């Protein structure tokens, strides 16, 4: 349960207020922007690599597409992947941590050793192999059944699932630690003495006490997933053209770097949106942690 004074605590922290403000603006821009910009901005135009101007505030790219439209719709996609991926990691991590902490003993040791080992293998590299192996299979599967919606979104769906699958480790560790602390408290012992089932104790008595911590790490997982997605898209192995995410836009910008002319706007605007999104999410997460999890504070 969130404490009653949470909003007040946050509003006293100037960086948290700024973070919430910037996030709100970015989310509104990403949701509304691509819808209200003129339709011609979606299409390739005659002006290749034109610097920022009144007609194109962010300039245009190699194909003369308006960069503002692409950056805003890219931000939308990155946010979507970040939030959905973090939600998946939340479910996996919480379930794993709950079981590991509650059962305890040898099971707990083995489960946590597993987390340690997963931490030390290059998960992103392994998941890349998985994404590219599984994507073609899913596309085939969807095409055979004529599921048009899935054919279009199969790659994004796989991206979201895979990134959720690799980012749950921290959540599992944190939840397990909290469960260990909570499960010996008297109200849990009382519930056990009353003969309530383990499932009921976990869901009705322990889980509500974890909500604060879970919210904190959810806020911190979203930027991690956004970075992972951009990493894959930057390499050309995540989001596929013509759809753009912030990562693939940055890749376009980086590949346009040359000593003769620098197309600085192609790097500056995607970088700015990415940096502002990640920074405000991290600031907000830190502020929430200070407010909800006093033990993590120094």
């Amino acid at each position, binding site marked *: 349960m969130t404490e009653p004074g949470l909003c007040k605590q946050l509003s006293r922290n100037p960086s948290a207020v700024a973070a919430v403000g910037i996030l709100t603006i970015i989310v509104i821009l990403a949701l509304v922007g691509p819808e209200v910009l003129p339709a011609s901005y979606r299409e390739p135009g005659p002006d290749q690599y034109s610097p920022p101007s009144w007609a194109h505030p962010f300039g245009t790219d190699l194909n003369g597409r308006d960069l503002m439209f692409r950056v805003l719709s890219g931000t939308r996609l990155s946010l979507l992947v970040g939030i959905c991926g973090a939600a998946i990691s939340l479910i996996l991590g919480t379930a794993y941590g709950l079981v590991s902490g509650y059962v305890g003993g040898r099971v707990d*040791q083995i489960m946590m*050793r597993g987390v340690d*080992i997963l*931490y*030390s*293998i*290059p*998960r*992103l*590299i*392994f998941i*890349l*192999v*998985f994404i*590219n*192996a*599984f994507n*073609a*299979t899913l596309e*085939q599967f969807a095409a055979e059944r004529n599921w048009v919606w899935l054919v279009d979104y199969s790659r994004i769906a796989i991206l979201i699932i895979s990134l959720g699958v690799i980012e749950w480790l921290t959540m599992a560790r944190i939840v397990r630690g909290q469960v260990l602390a909570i499960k010996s408290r008297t109200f849990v012992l009382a519930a056990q003495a009353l003969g309530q089932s383990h499932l009921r104790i976990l869901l009705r008595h322990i889980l509500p006490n974890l909500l604060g911590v879970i919210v904190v790490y959810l806020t911190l997982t979203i*930027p991690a997933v956004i*970075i992972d997605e*951009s*990493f894959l898209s*930057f*390499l*050309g*192995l995540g989001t596929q053209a013509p759809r753009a995410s912030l*990562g693939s836009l*940055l*890749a376009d*910008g*980086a590949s346009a*770097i040359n*000593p003769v002319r*620098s197309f*600085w706007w192609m*790097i500056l605007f995607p*970088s700015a949106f*990415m*940096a502002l999104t*990640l*920074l405000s999410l*991290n*600031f907000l997460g*830190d502020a929430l942690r200070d407010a909800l999890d006093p033990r993590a504070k*120094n």
Partner: protein
Amino acid sequence: MIGTLLRRVVSLIVVLGVVISATFFLIRLSPGGPFDAERKIPEQIEKQLLAKYKLDGTLWEQFTGYWGDLLQGDLRLSTKYRNRSVNEILAQTLPVTFTLGAISFLLATTLGVWLGTFAATRHRRAGDTIAMLAALLAISLPSFVIGPILILVFALDLRWLPVGGWGTPMQVILPAITLAAPYVAYIARLMRSSMLETLNQDFIRTARAKGLAERVVLWKHALRVAILPVVTFMGPLAAHLLTGSIVVETIFHIPGAGGFFVHSIQNRDGFLLGGVVIVYCVLLVAFNLAVDIAYTLLDRRIELND
């Protein structure tokens, strides 16, 4: 302690076996082969190709055959770069990736530890606040944001450093900073909180009461305990650096293993892809074991037991 170490080695070998097998099946079972092209290859030639690259036979025969070759240290032939073996390609590119990774590793750990200690000794003063704000900024800027911006500023605008490439010390500076920056920040935050905790402990008060210089208290007594969380993070750090170097090599046009990894996925070059994944995993697992041992040597209170 020898017993627990042995048990750990065995469990890591099991993990490696699972990872390698999973990689093999993921690559082999995905639709589309390495010789799929617009123009159909004559059947006889395709058969010979498959035989040359040992892609014939049942899946099980291929699987056991691959393991047999692996155990002899043979990562097989690349299907894209014809007639070059994966061993050859990796022998050429891995030293480059390692040099970059090792420099970034040293940079991240030394600078991170120093910054974190610096911030801890100035707790709640201007130096602390500025250092921690900078750290949060660096954590939020991934390498594919920092890299292009560093190039724009230092290579194209100021012309102090080269845009990319590999071979001279000047060419290492920008990539190493790009790769290490987020981890300098992460380690600084880790180090700061653990140093703050350590400085509050009794043995530090004793050391100060003995009249030891603050420098000695900090860098000889406190550091030895406070650095332990950083040592724990070294294993994941190596994994992050290996992964991150793929992007950094792309940005700065560095001829390391990362580029071959990306191309091998695009070209369906199964054995090259498998080779990179396997070598990376083996190295990281070995490195983690070394970190575990270093940890017990540093902290006598902890015995390896599970």
